[in-house]
């Protein structure tokens, strides 16, 4: 745990905070991409320790939040058909159009909460007379394990396993945000764990095209304040470069075996983002050769279409246009116990972060 305590060290963090205060002269809007970073910023009380001029805008990097509503309904439909559905934990409370996976479980659905899709393959093996579906959502970080589960199933000749997938990618989302005319973002903190898989190379073209600093950043308090410092320093000096704060984890070339596994099973395709809409070439779809592992094809559920709750402004939250507390429903109607949208329920959602930890709620 020393490894963690070092990055939660008061003195070291304070040193960077002092430096940020010293060098900041203008107002800067910095977006942290990843929901894990949002939570760490709020949970550790970092936002209020920053100069007023350094404003953190929370990005769309919450896999649960951007998973389209109809996909949750599809998972529920599978449960109701008697199929064993396996999911990561934070997906199960997210409201679908009528109910959540958790409610479908209470009605008798066989829902299993797992940490790894590989476990779902084992469940399929142990239950040869049942169909098993893994709800494979996430960014580039979870794609290798999900792809690997398909390869495992293939290798072992397991035919009762498939994945319901909604894999999205960070760089196209950043581009979509920057192309938005309402965008006010001056710099990005790149998502450390996504880059740990994919490496740095996808981000150079963004830096060049939009002349914007990107600092690949970790998740601990010290990581975040150092990343913010690096971004502010570039902005104050008029630079725009790709920098790597999280070098202890992120390598320039990424994790090559993991990338290989992804490309074996998935190819780039259009993807719908909850609250944002369809972004071209913004996600992974299952390659033709592995279509028999695609639950949407296997169970003929691809025609389920539903509409979002109109009171939820998740789209504006996810694009960084509004802060959670600027939503009229926030903490009044919309709470973790009665979420209108995914950002209030996911462990990485910005609304949940503000609801659980934020000083804005201290009277």
């Amino acid at each position, binding site marked *: *745990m020393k490894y*963690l305590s070092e990055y*939660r*060290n*008061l003195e070291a*963090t*304070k040193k960077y905070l002092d430096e940020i205060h010293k060098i900041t002269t203008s107002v800067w809007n910095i977006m942290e991409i990843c929901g*894990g970073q949002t939570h760490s910023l*709020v*949970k*550790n*009380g*970092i*936002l*209020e*320790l920053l100069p007023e001029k350094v404003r953190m805008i929370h990005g769309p990097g919450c*896999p*649960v939040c951007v998973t389209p509503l109809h996909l949750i309904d599809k998972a529920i439909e599978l449960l109701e058909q008697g199929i064993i559905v396996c999911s*990561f*934990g*934070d*997906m*199960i*409370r997210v409201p679908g159009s009528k109910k959540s996976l*958790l409610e479908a479980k209470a009605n008798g659905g066989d829902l*299993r*909460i*797992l*940490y790894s899709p590989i*476990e779902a393959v084992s469940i399929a093996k142990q239950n040869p007379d049942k169909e098993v579906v893994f709800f494979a*959502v*996430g*960014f580039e*970080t*979870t794609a290798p394990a999900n792809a690997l589960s398909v390869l495992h199933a293939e290798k072992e000749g397991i035919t009762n396993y498939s994945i319901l997938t909604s894999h999205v990618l960070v760089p196209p989302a950043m581009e979509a945000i920057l192309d938005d005319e309402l965008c006010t973002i001056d710099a990005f903190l790149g998502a450390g*764990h996504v880059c740990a898989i994919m490496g740095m190379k996808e981000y150079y073209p963004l830096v060049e095209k939009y002349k914007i600093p990107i600092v690949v950043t970790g998740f601990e*308090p*010290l990581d975040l304040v150092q990343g913010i410092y690096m971004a502010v320093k570039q902005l104050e000096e008029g630079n725009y470069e790709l920098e790597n704060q999280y070098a202890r984890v992120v390598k320039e070339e990424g994790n090559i075996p993991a990338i290989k596994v992804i490309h074996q099973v998935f190819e780039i395709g259009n993807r719908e983002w909850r609250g944002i809409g369809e972004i071209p070439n913004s996600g992974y779809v299952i390659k033709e050769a592995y279509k028999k592992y695609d639950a949407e094809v296997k169970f003929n559920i691809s025609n389920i279409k539903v509409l979002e709750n109109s009171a939820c402004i998740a789209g504006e939250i996810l694009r960084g246009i509004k802060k959670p507390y600027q939503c009229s429903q926030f903490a009044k109607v919309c*709470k*973790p*116990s009665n979420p209108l949208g995914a950002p209030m329920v996911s*462990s*990485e959602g910005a609304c949940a972060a503000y*609801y*659980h*930890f*934020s*000083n804005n*709620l*201290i*009277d």
Partner: protein
Amino acid sequence: MDIENLGFDTINLGHGSGGELTRKLLDNIIFKTFSNPYLDQKHDGSIVKFEGEIAASTDSFVITPIFFKGGNIGELAVYGTVNDVAMCGAIPKYLSLAFIVEEGLKVEEFIKIVTSIKKAADESGVLIITGDTKVVEKGKGDKIFINTTGFGEVHPKANISVQNIKAGDKILVNGFIAQHGMAIMSEREGLEFESDLESDSTNLNFLVEELLDNFGDKIKLFRDPTRGGLGTVLHEIATDISKGVFIKEALIPVEKQVAAACEMLGLDPMYVANEGVFLVVVDSSIEAEVLKLMKNHTKGKNSAIIGEFTNEHPNKVVMESLIGGKRIVSPLVGEQLPRIC
């Protein structure tokens, strides 16, 4: 107990019928184990005498798995209720004990549970004075459920009430938090990870009694943060009395392995269940003496003062983070769930 002489190795519906099989189960296992003057009367209930005020508390135990590192459902059913009675500022004396067994439970497992109930009751100084055993069909239960109700005599010096708490009162815990929840988590199906984590399930009544002997009504409150964890309980107290709670993350005792496991699974130790943990609210004039007494007791070696009550931010628990930032600690909603990444 000799299982071979019993003539059965699993519990079936007949053992709950009230007939001969029930008698066999009770005589050979229950009465034999818990024999005491009250129970030996084999009456429908027991009559006991109390000197002063009586504290009563009931709890049902449905934990899965029923055997885990550091304990099993049986001792948990004793310690859990003994502790709840103790938290009222009382000295636990008697317990009722009711089983709901799912048919098919191995007698061997049942005996193991009953034996550890006896051991835990002896350790806590309580007698089992009445009980019940029901058997339900396969699929209608989860191996075994246990309900216990505890009765205790309120300590003559005790004046335990949230209403006695005032700004400036200090909050102490008797040791590492989140240990029980993480030990159980490490053995849950689908989440198994290797660790030496053990449940800290234990009885706290003697430490509570000693605190009351020494400090009487300067002790304002005892509370054991079981389900929902420390965070949820502190929030409950704050809202009950419309005061604020201010705690410091750096002061909260979390054992290294537990912290690492929470980190890995994406869980917050503030919301993880405890069994052998309680918090004490005391007048600030005695905080040092209370801490000293607790640290010298076997059930409080890792005790710590973690914060205090305040008139600022009423109804809110505010925590200073390790890096000096502040955040609120909101109550747990639903269950803590494993995260995506």
